[in-house]
């Protein structure tokens, strides 16, 4: 879909997802990485647990569909090559600390003068200016400052992040949205511009209605463990232990929730493990969070006992059959065997770093017109020569760059 467009991707592991999204949508994304390899290549775990510059699974995932040109942007000769590449490009993506690229003559003003139609996407924790501009950040500290952590975790323990980092991945996704908005503006005017992403803002936007609860009703929502607060200080359990892990069951109320809960009661009754109060409750008549206290209490104890003695596979498959709104809390192995993903052919085979094959995530959207392609992540410098000769370098000039250490 975006095949006419070229993206120069200077983003490291913090902005890596932005270029992946644009590459998935068909753009030619050229990852510029140091001759020693991008920092993302050092993130473990590695393919077959063999560390090496090509084996990072993080890299394999988020650099798929990209090309790699290895250039040392701190060397003058490589920077001149990079400027030529940028002159030929439609987008640039970067995730350095604010000001770093200005110091190399590759800041927005420099690049805008070189290529006024270029869209320059910067992905940073807090944006290009403001009081936190120069703050150091990690996924954890970003989760704190965005308001995410306060809402997440058990009430008697500290606020939490997700153990799989979210902050940068979300910022990268937002960068792709900003890039396409700026692209629409360019189609109207011919002009490029800067897209300045704040990961903090992107994560704050995941807080659902919680900021509005404060602003409208002066209520500060708090973390509530495996429960969801349903008003008046009451809680509804949503994550339950089962025989081999956990399942998720949220009783949403209303007609749909009523049908599901009635089906669950029938299921428990068939095993003689139901509760008369539940069997006799018309759940469809109650909206989310409106169940009486005695029903809520009976639900907790009955469901906890019923789920605890059964496996997540049995519970979730039977739930599908009975149209009960119960789902497995998938661990990575469960994800990989989830029948719906297999039926849609989500997982794909691709070339592994060792030359064999490996399984990876397939495209995240299906297009009737231009099915998304999936190419393995590039080897370090795999496309250096192709990319440089494409902007007028002779093979000898490329060889000189390599000999000087400015390129690989």
């Amino acid at each position, binding site marked *: 879909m975006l095949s006419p467009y070229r993206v120069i991707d200077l983003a490291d592991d913090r902005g890596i997802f932005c270029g992946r999204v644009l590459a998935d949508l068909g753009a030619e994304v050229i990852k510029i990485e140091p001759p020693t390899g991008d920092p993302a290549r050092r993130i473990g775990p590695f393919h077959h647990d063999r560390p090496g510059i090509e084996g990072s699974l993080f890299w394999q995932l988020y650099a798929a569909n990209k090309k790699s040109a290895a250039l040392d942007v701190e060397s003058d000769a490589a920077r001149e090559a990079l400027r030529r590449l940028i002159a030929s490009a439609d987008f640039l993506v970067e995730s350095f600390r604010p000001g770093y690229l200005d110091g190399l003559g590759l800041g927005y003003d420099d690049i805008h003068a070189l290529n006024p139609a270029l869209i320059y996407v910067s992905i940073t924790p807090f944006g290009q200016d403001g009081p936190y501009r120069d703050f150091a950040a990690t996924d954890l*500290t970003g989760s704190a400052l965005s308001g995410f952590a306060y809402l997440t975790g058990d009430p008697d323990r*500290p606020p939490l992040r997700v153990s799989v980092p979210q902050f940068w991945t979300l910022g990268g996704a937002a960068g792709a949205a900003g890039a396409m908005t700026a692209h*629409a503006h360019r189609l*109207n005017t011919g002009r490029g511009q800067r897209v300045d992403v704040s990961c903090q803002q992107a994560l704050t936007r995941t807080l659902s209605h919680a900021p509005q609860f404060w602003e*409208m009703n002066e209520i500060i929502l708090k973390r509530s463990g495996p429960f969801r607060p349903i008003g008046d200080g009451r809680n509804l359990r949503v994550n339950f232990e089962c025989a081999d892990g956990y399942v998720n069951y949220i009783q949403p109320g209303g007609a749909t929730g009523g049908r599901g809960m009635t089906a669950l009661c029938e299921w428990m009754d068939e095993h003689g493990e139901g509760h008369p109060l539940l069997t006799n409750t018309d759940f469809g008549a109650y909206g989310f969070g409106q169940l009486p206290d005695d029903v809520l209490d009976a639900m907790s104890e009955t469901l906890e006992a019923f789920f605890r003695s059964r496996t997540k596979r049995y519970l979730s498959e039977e739930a599908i059959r009975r149209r009960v709104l119960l789902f497995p809390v998938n661990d990575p192995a469960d994800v990989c065997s989830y029948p719906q993903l297999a039926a849609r052919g989500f997982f794909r085979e691709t070339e592994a770093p060792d030359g064999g094959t490996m399984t990876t995530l397939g495209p995240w959207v299906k297009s009737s017109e231009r099915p998304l392609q999936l190419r393995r992540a590039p080897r370090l410098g795999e496309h250096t020569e192709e990319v440089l000769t494409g902007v007028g370098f002779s093979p000898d000039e490329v060889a000189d760059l390599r000999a000087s250490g400015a390129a690989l």
Partner: protein
Amino acid sequence: MTRPFAQPFEGLRVLDFCWVVIGPMTTRYFSDFGAEVLRVESSLRPDVIRHGLPFAEGKPGTNRSGYWANYNSGKLGLGLNMGDERARHLAFRLATEWADVVTENFTPGTMERWGLGYDALREHNPGLVMFSASMLGRGGPYDSQPGFGPVLTALSGHTNFTGWPDRVPVSPYGAYTDFLIPHIAFAAVCAALDHKRRTGHGQYLDLSQLEAALYFAGPPVMDYLANGRIQTRNGNHDPEMAPHAVYRCEGNDRWCAVACPTDTEWRALALAIGRADLADDPGLATLDGRKQREGELDAAIEAWTITRSPDEVMQACQTAGVPAGAVRDCRDLFDDPQHTHRGHFVFMDHPEMGRYASDANCFQLSETTPEYRRAPLLGEHTEYAMRELLGMPEDEYRMLLDEGVFE
């Protein structure tokens, strides 16, 4: 508001059947940046968050939900009773005579039952871009399974990765994946529009929320596929960094996150908390050494943070070059200096709710200023859509209104 250039999507027409969050947050990008987004609502499938908390002044009402308003700013409200064949025909006409884009996130089959499936629409509007975002995608054994946003974190693995290793996992707050996917979903619709501009060809985009969400929890899935390892939640600890935790500060439920990505930050932190002895301890000079004594270090750090406010801790750490972030609750977010600087919360006036807060976009553009406008009342623009967009005579509009086709 000064508008040095026209809005990027001015002239674009989006017929928006999306509801709840994932769809409306996707299409809000279009309304923020100048497109005409006509939000179709039906009492047959009322948007559940129109009646979702919180309400202005705590009083429930169809036009009073701050949750709903946040994701529908700048859209036009069209109320159709989709149980009536005439309403379905009017929706069909809007989709085929007016719209450039049709968006929806119902259970697969719903649009088809209304005669609004892609195949039916394409026949009369070949350049149409249609976007569907269902929970589990089209096709496959579970595609019609009922469900809603919050369960997706269970399926995608986010729930399993949120919590303490010795306890039941918790989930990220709310319908978490609904807020991740719109950024890339919007990018995909934009790419399809670019393709149409160049080739004249429309297309259908089928997005499985589960599949897209996996890109936000992908590395451990890759680890399982390649190595057979099953990673799990780890509280706030991190295999590559130590110390790495959220520490209790002075006050009631006040906290600050601190992380030491390398040995350098560790040494700086130890000195900042007045523990030169730890900074100089050779056993703590490496990640492995600190990992072995992580509990001891966490206690030493908390002994220092407990007498300080989160902002004091954050400033002291940042001054020393150590990543730190005060834990903000939702009240704090409205006073957060960086959010204030960036104008994260946008305040709008609404005829029923009065002043309310909406989130700004998480990127700023150097040449384009989004136009944030309040959310519509249910059916506020029905007459406009019928009379102006479809050219319906006034007497026909009145008759259909009287007969309950509109709502």
